[in-house]
């Protein structure tokens, strides 16, 4: 079984690697994580929990680009 910390770590690194290149959405990320750890080691619920912790701790934030995305925290919107 993958621990929450392992799942969080994987998600964070994935989002980091996409930064500026690809907008990642929750369903895609969920499928990606489950594929990586294997269905027996990681459930949808686990991914959900890991994501919630990452967001509550402000390691990641929600974005919006014609649908919700998850991304690294950055400067406010298109304010500039």
């Amino acid at each position, binding site marked *: 079984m993958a621990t929450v910390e392992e799942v969080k770590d994987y998600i964070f690194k994935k989002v980091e690697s996409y930064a500026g290149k690809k907008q990642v959405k929750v369903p895609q990320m969920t499928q990606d994580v489950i594929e990586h750890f294997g269905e027996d080691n990681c459930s949808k619920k686990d991914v959900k929990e890991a994501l919630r912790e990452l967001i509550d701790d402000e390691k990641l934030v929600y974005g*919006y680009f014609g649908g919700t995305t998850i991304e690294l925290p950055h400067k*406010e919107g298109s*304010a500039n």
Partner: protein
Amino acid sequence: MSNTPLIDELVKGPWPSFIKDIKRTAEKNEMCKDLLNLLEMSYRDKKTHWKHGGIVGVRGYGGGIIGRYSDSPELYPGVSHFHTVRINQPAGWFYSTSALRYICDLWEKHGSGLTNLHGSTGDMVMLGTTTEHLEDIFTDLSEHGWDLGGSGSDMRTPSCCLGKSRCEFACIDTMAICHDLTNEWQDELHRPAFPYKFKIKIAGCPNDCVASIARSDCSIIGTWRDNIRQDDAAVAKYASGELVYGARADGKVDIKADVVDKCPTGCMSYEGGKLSIDNKNCNRCMHCINLMPQALRVGVDGGATILLGAKAPIVQGALLSSVLVPFIKMDPPYEEFKELIGRIWEFWDENGEARERIGEMIVRIGKGNFVEEVGCDPIPEMICEPRSNPYIFYEEYFEEE
């Protein structure tokens, strides 16, 4: 001389003027002043001066706040940041004045003082605030028993007609259902995890005053299985003119011409002063009940028809919802309904493409395949007519022994 001559033209005329309203609020609020200036510029240039923003919100939530920035911050700094806060409305849009006054005070302190009552999805829409106010607004709201609504790829704030609170047509308790579903699915509302948005609207009867069949991915529309309740004495009063259809200036009802002949299924007759209804053939259109509400009433065995898939045009064209379940009882705790929606979300999560509404997914994979996948039996109520084309993808073959 006014510096907003164009929008001042909208102060004139008998209909309530939003410009007049913003103007008097601008006496105390700088944001309103600059909003008027920016709007005047749009009226002059014939184009919008707003940009989307997107990346604002309150901590932990992915919905409820819409970022908005003007394209002319140096000209009108008061509206350079002008975000929207969606507050989840109480079911049925009922308010005590103390609750509404609290919201007004909050918005006087933290925002422009402008609102929409209400947004298209149903939320209280608070127009115009800046990022630094957001956490304070949220804390204040939750201290007072309020919460934010949805936005982005989440379950959007469910909304409903006023149902049993003030309407005898209601076949289901829309407000109780709306409140329960909203609370059941708080996580789905606040933490977007779907391929795209998912709207739920609950209408008490087939008149559909909340336009759920046109405006929600999941339409819950009240209906009844038993017979129309009929009061013959009241029918006679409509016939004599003692009772009238009050919704028209000339409300005298001709029972043969206005009721029987307008029945789309021809299931009514009126002979010798006796109105007869063949309930087996009634399609629950509501026309006769709408016309003579004191004589005819919906049945007592109420429930809902569940329809899926309505949406506006972008991307694959507009859709109306279509039938998934012809009749389902909607009594608390609504387990059968919630399990059905759970299966639908599960399937959509795994098969929906990014930014694909559920209605579009159903069209893409075929409604027959979809209903099978979510555990429903294909039944003729789901369609207007069977296919006329022979391009059938058979899934079973005989094999040589």
